[in-house]
């Protein structure tokens, strides 16, 4: 499965898709990037007259690139995946170091800790354009392909 096919299988759309491109992917890791459009609605309120990307959105971006993209790649290795993908975040422990402002591009690097019994747990880091660490943590989720169970 190539990098573009993985994006097609992502179960998100605007305004909640936080993946632009996968730069590298293999069985153990994934690197991807996303540019935070200044048009995002949350900038109007976070914060008033001082737009900064919310930490929960950074976490979401890390999870979409670091877990969901990698999860789709890993599931598809065993047998080709269907359109009926079920995913759920199960835990996240993240530290934040730098703010991300509207228009910034970030790179997310994720390393697999394990993928067993449909649970994927990864060590995930996010970097800004100056290659500074923005945030990092350990995120886990369940990813299940419910083939034929519509």
């Amino acid at each position, binding site marked *: 499965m190539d990098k573009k096919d993985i994006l097609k299988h992502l179960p998100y759309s605007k305004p909640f898709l936080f993946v632009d491109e996968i730069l590298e992917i293999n069985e153990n890791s994934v690197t991807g990037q996303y540019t935070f459009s200044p048009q995002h609605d949350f900038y109007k309120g976070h914060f008033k007259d001082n737009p900064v990307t919310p930490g929960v959105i950074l976490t979401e971006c890390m999870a979409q690139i670091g877990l969901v993209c990698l999860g789709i790649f890993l599931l598809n290795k065993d047998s080709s995946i269907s359109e009926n993908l079920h995913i*759920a975040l199960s835990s996240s422990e993240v530290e934040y170091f730098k703010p991300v402002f509207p228009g910034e591009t970030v790179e997310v690097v994720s390393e697999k800790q394990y993928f*067993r019994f449909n*649970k994927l747990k990864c060590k995930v880091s996010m970097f800004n354009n100056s290659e500074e660490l923005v945030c990092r943590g350990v995120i*886990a989720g369940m990813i299940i392909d419910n083939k034929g169970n519509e």
Partner: protein
Amino acid sequence: MSEKEIIERLKKIVEPYVQRSEGLENFQEKTDFLNDLEINSANLVDVVLDVEDEFDIEIDNDSMEGMLTVGDAKSIIQDKIKAE
């Protein structure tokens, strides 16, 4: 390893993942991981990984699916230890 010892060690493993602590007071073969202890499926995976480390065994997908109660886990552990 005695059955009692396996169950004691299992109890220690599941403790950090339990959401319903009353379930631990009466920890026995019939104790159901989901209903009595309210361990969710994501945490049940961690229980299984800890069981693998603790007993030095490998648990496959089929065994995992059949692991609903403490008794199920105990039987699987016993079988795997025998097969080692």
